[in-house]
Every structure is written in structure tokens, then in C-alpha cells.
């Protein structure tokens, strides 16, 4: 998990006070942004949220304004159309409130992922589960599931590319069934292999007293 987390994460090393802010504070702030923008939909809320998010990125992560704008690029088409719609169908102040609010929350969330190492994020969410142990939650198995998931994404993405190329070679790339069937079957087979590997190492099984007869899993 440690090795791979870095490749999937959005963390970029840098300086600024956001890098030293505890994860819990950043998470609460980023969540509070979403709650505030949805609960109190007003120009003032949007303006404050936008100021804090942009200010946080500029000062707290020492980004250039151009970098901040570029962060919004993936969401730009949706935001643009939404702003246009709100402006024309309703009024431009409302367009600012709605789209500005969404923008602020996207930036706030991005500020968190930019300044927190992926490993710390994962540790943080597992820590969050720990209080639920009394209710039967199992932080260790949750962490294990999370790390298997992250490890599997590149494998499945690679499989998808391979399968699509194979389909293209047969002139079948437009048939989604031909493209996706091997991917899904491959995923299930991969999960079984991983499950066997885990069981062989005594990982991922339930509490020992609840364990089933000692037959290994799988066929």
C-alpha cells in the first residue's frame, strides 16, 4: 500500500501552513464547506467559502493563481454550463451562489488532497473507523480491504486496456460486451486469487473463534 499510494494520490510536496495543519482539521473544514454551502445558500456564504478556499490554496499551499485555476479544469465544463443555465433561466446572482459554492467545495477538497500524503489519508480514515469497533467494526479488515482495492485499480485498468486492444484487433471494439466480459471475469478470478493468497497468510479471516472449519477457501 505504501508504495502504490503515492502513484494514485494527488499529493504534491510543497510548503505552507496547510502542509502542517493536522488532517482532522483539514477534513472537518472541507466537509464544513460542503455542509455550509448546501445548508445556507446565500451570496455571503458562497463568497466566504470561495475566499477561504482560494486563500487557503494561495497562502496555505503557496500555489500560484494559475495553478488554482488549472485545478478546476476537469470540472470546468459542468460548472460553465451550470452557471450559464442559472444565469439565463434564473439570475446571475443565483448562478454565482450555486456555481461559486460548488467551486469553493471542490477547491477545499483539493486543498486537502494536495497537502496530505495519500498514506496519511488512508491511515486517517482507518483511525476514523476505530471508535466503531464496539459496534463490531473491524478497522484492520477495513484497512486491508482499502489497500487491496488500491492495489487492484492499476491491475484492472491495465487489463481493461489489454482487452480493448485485443477487441480492436478483431474489429470488435464497438461491442461493449466483448470488451467488458473478460475484464469482469478477470476481476473475479483476480479476487479469488487474492483471497487465497490472503488466507494462506492467515490474513482477512474473521475472529479466530468465529472462523469456519479449517478448510482453505477457494476451489
Amino acid at each position, binding site marked *: 500500500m505504501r508504495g502504490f499510494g503515492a502513484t494514485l494520490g*494527488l499529493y504534491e510536496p510543497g510548503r505552507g501552513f496547510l502542509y502542517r495543519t493536522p488532517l482532522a482539521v483539514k*477534513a472537518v473544514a*472541507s*466537509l464544513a*464547506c*460542503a455542509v455550509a454551502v*448546501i445548508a445556507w*445558500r446565500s451570496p455571503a456564504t458562497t463568497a466566504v467559502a470561495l475566499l477561504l478556499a482560494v486563500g487557503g490554496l494561495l497562502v496555505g499551499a503557496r500555489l500560484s493563481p494559475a495553478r488554482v485555476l488549472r485545478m478546476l479544469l*476537469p470540472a470546468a465544463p*459542468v460548472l460553465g*454550463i451550470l452557471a450559464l*443555465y442559472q444565469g439565463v*433561466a434564473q439570475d446571475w446572482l443565483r448562478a454565482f451562489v450555486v456555481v461559486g459554492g*460548488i467551486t*469553493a*467545495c*471542490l477547491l477545499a*477538497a*483539493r486543498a*486537502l*488532497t494536495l497537502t496530505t500524503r495519500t498514506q496519511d489519508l*488512508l491511515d486517517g*480514515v482507518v483511525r476514523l473507523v476505530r471508535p466503531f469497533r464496539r*459496534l*463490531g*467494526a*473491524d478497522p484492520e479488515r*477495513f484497512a*486491508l*480491504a*482499502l489497500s*487491496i*482495492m*488500491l*492495489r*487492484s*485499480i492499476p491491475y*484492472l*485498468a491495465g487489463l*481493461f486496456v489489454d482487452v480493448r486492444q485485443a477487441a480492436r484487433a478483431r474489429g470488435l471494439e464497438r461491442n461493449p460486451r466483448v470488451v*467488458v*466480459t473478460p*475484464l*469482469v*471475469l478477470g476481476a*473475479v478470478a483476480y*479476487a*479469488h486469487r*487474492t*483471497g*487465497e493468497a*490472503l*488466507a494462506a497468510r492467515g490474513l*482477512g*479471516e*474473521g475472529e479466530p473463534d468465529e472462523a*469456519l472449519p479449517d*478448510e482453505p*477457501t*477457494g476451489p
Partner: protein
Amino acid sequence: MEPAQTTVTGTAGTGRRSTRRRWDATDLSLVAVFAALIAALAILPGIPVGPLGVPITLQTLGVLLAGLVLGPARGTAAVLLYLVAGLIGLPVFSGFSGGFGVLAGPTAGYLLAFPLAALVAGLLTVGVLRRTRRFRVVLLFLAALTASLLTIHPLGIAGLMLNAGLPLRDAILVDVVYLPGDVVKDVLAAVLAVSVHRAFPRLLAAKPPLRA
């Protein structure tokens, strides 16, 4: 979120169905790999369609597949795991890159509906697989369609109204654009699920009561 699901299954094991049991390592890795499958399908191709450009991806295909292939408990857990990974900021959502920000975005309703969709699809699938061996593709297609009509579309519309500030009529119009694509994805999910259950018959079928 996800371990709570584990508990549900764990306690369900004492219930009516004697075949239910606490998840073993294979169940755990099926949940994790399906969460990864949804992520892979969501990330890879993304074609923005419709007036709001909500990207049509195979994301919902992955969600429905989780229910159709893994059943209600593991399927829902897989989707929840996927959501948790996206909400803490890993780039596994299509379009937006993840993090709590999506909760304020126009697609939030769709994302939050996904676990419910897997749950409904999974429950219906278990019913279908237990009862009949015939017309499975058609029945699983209906299961997937029901799940997405009951959960993804209503909650998606609610999200558009709440987060994007659309009036009901406009939100429905935006949502309806995705309906034809969804039906195609439901068919695909049913065909795929039948293939998977044929290749891995023990995945959801009632397991023999004595495993030893």
C-alpha cells in the same frame, strides 16, 4: 462505513439463512476488487453528455455489477468502500477528482444512491438466482433496471435540485437524458452477471450447508 456492513453480514449469519456466515478472505477481496473495478470503470473513459455534461461512464455499470454479481451484502460493501475511497480524496470518481467537494457538486445524489442501487439489485438477484435457472438475463436486466429506477434516478434528481439549484422539471429533463444509456448499461450488466455466475457458480448460489 464498510465494516458496519461486515457486522450486518456477521449478525445475519445467525438468522434464518444458515448458509450466511462471517466473511472469509475471499469475500473480503471480492469486495475490495469490485470497489477497484468500479473505480477503474469510472476513471477510464468518460464521455460528457447532456446539457449538464454529467459524464456517462461505465461507473454505474460497475455499481450494478457489484449487486448482480456479489449479492446485497458484499455488493453494497464494495460500493461503500468505493465511495469512502473517493470521499477521502482518492481520484476514483469520474469527472470530479474526489474528496468531500463532490458532496456539494451536482452529481452528489447519484453517488449517494449507488450503495442503495447495489443493495436493491443484489436483493433482487438473490431472489432470481434462487428461484429459477431460465430467463436469467431478462430477469437480471429487470433487477438492474428496477434498482436504478428506484434509487439512482430519484436521488440523482434530488441532488440536481438541491446542489445545482434546478427546479424539479428541469432536473427531471437533465436526468432523462441518461435513461437510454442506463438501459443499455442494465442490459450489459445482466449479460455480464450471467456469464460471471456461469463461470463462478459458487459466487452467489446457496453454498452447501456443510463446507467441510
